[in-house]
């Protein structure tokens, strides 16, 4: 779905169209859940936070304004990150990747050995670096868009990304 189509559904949802909201949920629920589930220890917790993120999206749709260099997903992941930070603060917990629930659908080219090495390497990175890598590689966000999610500058995002990849490469080649 293109960004223009997404913005059209956002407008309809703001006008009270429940079906438009359903389309948006279908488009983003898995992506938000994946972002959260790879950082929390329990599947139920990820589900709860996902639901909280979408409730907040509904409540905040009236205030949503499209920003330059930002998509609707940027705004949504910003909410997801804030709720995740709230969860960390309440639980004081850091979630190892080993505890991530098994996926419902297997990826097409899954390699269990390489997959494990990458997950272990990611597990050693600070939360900010992991978020940058996640949004870059899974969500294909630009540094400018990631900067909106992290509330920082694009230059800083590039620096964080550079350092994270450098460490990651070292870890996965050992």
């Amino acid at each position, binding site marked *: 779905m293109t960004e223009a189509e997404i913005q059209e559904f956002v407008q309809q949802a703001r006008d009270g169209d429940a079906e438009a909201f359903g389309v948006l949920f279908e488009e983003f629920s*898995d992506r938000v859940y994946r972002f959260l589930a790879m950082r929390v220890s329990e599947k139920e917790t990820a589900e709860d936070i996902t639901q909280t993120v979408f409730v907040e999206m509904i409540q905040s*749709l*009236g205030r949503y304004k499209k920003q330059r260099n930002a998509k609707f997903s940027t705004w949504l992941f910003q909410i997801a990150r804030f709720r995740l930070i709230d969860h960390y603060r309440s639980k004081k917990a850091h979630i190892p990747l080993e505890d991530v629930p098994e996926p419902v659908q297997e*990826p097409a080219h899954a390699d269990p050995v390489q997959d494990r090495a990458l997950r272990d390497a990611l597990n050693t990175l600070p939360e900010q670096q992991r978020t940058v890598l996640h949004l870059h590689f899974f969500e294909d966000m630009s540094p400018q868009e990631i900067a909106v999610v992290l509330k920082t500058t694009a230059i800083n995002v590039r620096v964080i990304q550079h350092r994270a990849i450098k460490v990651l490469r070292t870890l996965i080649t050992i």
Partner: protein
Amino acid sequence: MQFPFLYNIRENNDDLRTRFQAMQTPHLSVEHKKRMLGELQKTFKNVTTKDDARYRMRQPFYFFRQTKPMIPILAAIVILLGGTFGTAAAADAAKPGDVFFGVDRAAEQTSLAFAFSGEKKARIRTNIAEERERERVELQQEGRTEDAAQAEEHADVALVQAIETISDVRVKIEEKGNDDALQALTEVENRLEALRQMRDDRDGDADDSGDDMTAKGLTEAEVHIENGVAEVQVEYNDEKQTFVLVTSDRDAIIAEIVARTGATEEAVRAAVRIEENGVVDEPIDDVSDDDSADSSEDINDDSHATNSSNGEQEQEQEQEQEQEQEQEQEQEQEHVNGNTNQNQEQEQEQEQDREEEHANTNTSDDEEQSDDEQNQEQVRNEIRVEVNQEDGKAEIHTRIGSAEMEWELKTTNQNTILLSISGKTGLSGAQIQAVWQYSVED
């Protein structure tokens, strides 16, 4: 400017992207997704409907949540500003005797301290003087007599300070030759002059205030005019006043007496006794017995009055001369009849008598003139104003009764000097000009 590592990120991470996308990642089950969507749809209908109260209330709630941490700060600012402006407003409206009057004066001193130009200072001083006068009037209207008396003192002090400030400022501006500033200062001076006039009127009103209590009216009004200067002595309701006017115009003199005493013009004209250069005009009542129309004309036109009185004297002299001639003719006839010796003796005696009378008349005239001079000298002694102008400064010395004052002004402008003297002594400009001794030294 771009850094090399940024190119590396873009160009060399395809392998990592592939590995990330090939990684097993968690997904929501279809059942979970359906259940979650069902619950969210309920929330969506409840919240997103524009008619829903919660939808409309979101914005204020959001605003409150954002501003909540700032509430103490905002409250402090509101209290501080409210207190400051409230106190300032209350102080500005304060009058002598009010709690905030001290704050009012402190604020005025502060504004004076921050007035860096002389013209600005003069303007503020004048504003202060006007405010004091306004407060005095308001206090009088409110019936707060003690506070009004206090306000009167404040008003007088403010007026004098304003006059002195203006005189200093004028000197400096004149030295600089700044015409615009002089123009502005003249406007301030006019305001100050109006204020001084109000003060004089206030004194007049104070004199008038006893009318109803005593109500004895004008019992004495004597005017001595000499060389264009009129010394006036009046007694009204048992209160004596002596003042000097630089005019010989009787209408103006009578008008001034009316203004100072509060008596009616008719009463003044009826009681006034005017003496000009030794010639006395009696009150209208006395003259009106003979010819009221003529006498009123006499009073209205002093030159005509003087001429008519001189004419009467000439008629009397002519009558005396005729009588003497008749006596001489009789004496000549008697002499012819042989009574020459006795008549000569009588004639000699009569001549001696005339000479004695003439001598006595001259003596009494001299005594009257010397008395007048003494009175004038006495008045001058009672009110003495000396101004010595030297090197662009004016040294002023005043003595009113036993009260003496001495001060210096850095100006030679006579208006300013007059204002200053008037402000300090309470004398009117005319009074000062009538008695002052003004000397200029190079």
